[in-house]
């Protein structure tokens, strides 16, 4: 069987309305907004300190509410990707 995914306590979230709105959404749901992801407009890096740093189960609970926020278009809990140096 393929290795099980490992989920982190980081999220990629697409929030409409600019950085201030992203900060508001993050704070409202208990996240820390670590800022825009590179140059990708409306995509933000959220961090949740009360979630396991690594887990084979994806998180639900409060994250479901984040998904339901009308300003949130898309979100993804970040999985660890196995990368090797060549």
């Amino acid at each position, binding site marked *: 069987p393929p290795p099980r995914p490992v989920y982190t306590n980081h999220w990629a979230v697409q929030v409409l309305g600019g950085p201030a709105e992203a900060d508001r959404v993050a704070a409202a749901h208990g996240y820390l907004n670590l800022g825009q992801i*590179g140059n990708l407009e409306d995509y933000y890096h959220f961090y949740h300190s009360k979630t396991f740093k690594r887990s084979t189960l994806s998180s639900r609970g409060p994250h479901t509410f984040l998904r339901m926020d009308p300003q949130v278009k898309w979100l993804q809990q970040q999985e660890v990707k*196995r990368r090797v140096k060549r």
Partner: protein
Amino acid sequence: QVRSDPQALYFNDPIWSNMWYLHCGDKNSRCRSEMNVQAAWKRGYTGKNVVVTILDDGIERNHPDLAPNYDSYASYDVNGNDYDPSPRYDASNENKHGTRCAGEVAASANNSYCIVGIAYNAKIGGIRMLDGDVTDVVEAKSLGIRPNYIDIYSASWGPDDDGKTVDGPGRLAKQAFEYGIKKGRQGLGSIFVWASGNGGREGDYCSCDGYTNSIYTISVSSATENGYKPWYLEECASTLATTYSSGAFYERKIVTTDLRQRCTDGHTGTSVSAPMVAGIIALALEANSQLTWRDVQHLLVKTSRPAHLKASDWKVNGAGHKVSHFYGFGLVDAEALVVEAKKWTAVPSQHMCVAASDKRPRSIPLVQVLRTTALTSACAEHSDQRVVYLEHVVVRTSISHPRRGDLQIYLVSPSGTKSQLLAKRLLDLSNEGFTNWEFMTVHCWGEKAEGQWTLEIQDLPSQVRNPEKQGKLKEWSLILYGTAEHPYHTFSAHQSRSRMLELSAPELEPPKAALSPSQVEVPEDEEDYTAQSTPGSANILQTSVCHPECGDKGCDGPNADQCLNCVHFSLGSVKTSRKCVSVCPLGYFGDTAARRCRRCHKGCETCSSRAATQCLSCRRGFYHHQEMNTCVTLCPAGFYADESQKNCLKCHPSCKKCVDEPEKCTVCKEGFSLARGSCIPDCEPGTYFDSELIRCGECHHTCGTCVGPGREECIHCAKNFHFHDWKCVPACGEGFYPEEMPGLPHKVCRRCDENCLSCAGSSRNCSRCKTGFTQLGTSCITNHTCSNADETFCEMVKSNRLCERKLFIQFCCRTCLLAG
């Protein structure tokens, strides 16, 4: 093999003499310098004002060989979220990789320390992102650091090269790539260079890595100093070019900067190749800072060469480029790259055409080939999508399969170029198949896009597999990238002519069905080749530097395409420009009277005239019909395709059609019947064909028809005989009954129900029971049943209809019958 260059550059860096892949300073017979980096330096290109960054585990920014070129503005620590990309030091020096890669690109020259970087005046940065959990966010951030400042991103990492992983960039990383090529470098496009992979020993295939397989990355492979495939090399059709790297134990490795301010002569793998190409591209960007991301790929296609790289699959594509799944277009040539870059004009805008989209699910038969074709106009009807000249070709597909590693996928272009999109991977036992996976090939670069494309999928089990579980092609689409205009037509007249020669000379014709009226073959010009010359200049050149193939009329330049007439043959037409050649290339024949190379008929590889019936050998995908001397895609009836010789060979006279061998018949001529793959003469009923005596012999008296004289060789039974246990018998044995079988003239003996001694008409219709069973109606039930059930119990049995259930019938029915 080249001779030592007497004018070789000298550097005081102590390990310069060990940089065998850059110079011939050691004056021994193992000298290699086909990458021509020194020649590019001599032309004055050292990477000045070009910014390269290494995406890796950090770089040692205070290394004496890196510090002079280190650029903090091109650096970032994504793992630590700060601006210092210094690696984390540990006892095992685990994080040495980025520092090693950085030295290859931009180690300082003449500082008496370590080595000389290929772009030793370029600025070098590092993005530390591999020393921690790598996520889509980490990758997207890393790929998108300062795209208007950093020119080239070099990455020597990727998903596991274990021969069983299929993985690529996530949603965010994909968007970062797209942002980079659209907006990076003030709109010219970031240049992403990627190592093709180290999974050669595990049988990995680099198309299963979505980073090297992306159209946005320049995927680089490696060759050993002797031109061999190194043990770690991964093949695939998305590899664009190659550099030297390490090989067998007796072959030299790469020298570069190392962690803790050291130098190393032990850098290895494809990791070496991406930074080398990044450095060489930096030289090209210094020569022409306006190159777009696609210009760079065009330049690599155009200037990389097979040199002495050994591979079994070098082929010439329909645009005349030599290409291989091992090495892409070959070894990079730094001098050719800077020379071409200097005079380069941007290629026309990229068009994308979804040429075909097929959502009909199809089973992939075991061992055989599932072949599906798409005839396309390449979006000729949409001016903003139309692709005439190809760059990248992508097949997006979803396939379900019980063992993914058994699959092989090929794509054949209208010009006949066959790319292997996927090879078997013995270690890939996954049953996940492919979901919207994009396989990319660069092997059709420069070819015409219009015509028939063929996707071939083959399922070759490497281990025993349940034959009932077949793979399924759920959907696929063909996405063509390229230009509507010729990519090199925007050059000055002279440049245009020479470029056209390279692209169009060996160009193969697309199938007739693929041609639109405007593309019908332009007739060859019959007049002698009289290239336009500038008055006064031709005479100077004609006496001194004409190409050896030029004839007595001289030339207006030193190249074979600048001759005024030819010694042997001229190749090409006035429209596509001509050049002089000593021998005509494949697809052409030499017309000695006219001293011209003329095109063979479609499908012919070599021929003696233009006629369809004068083919001597055929192009890939065609078979040579030896009686007709034609090239055909399918052998006609009565002939079979000999795959080893690519010929159509005659079937046995008794066969109407056959496969693989003359006597492996699939359809017989009249008067013959197919038996065990052979056509045997039809014999009278009750007789069979005796192949030893070559006459019809009597069947056993119990047989109606047969394949031999034995009792067990009946095909059909004689009248009143039933088929039982491979024999024809007058009556079925005990426990069997005769049953009619549709399509058979005789009855077949079938077994009665388990408890019946005999039955009639059906297996359940018992006429006698075995010992210990009693007949109840037409069933035989066990004697061991109780006979004292009370009324309530029977009601329960009846209301639950237990007697109708096979499990209970033996225990209930007799009981309840007795109880009323």
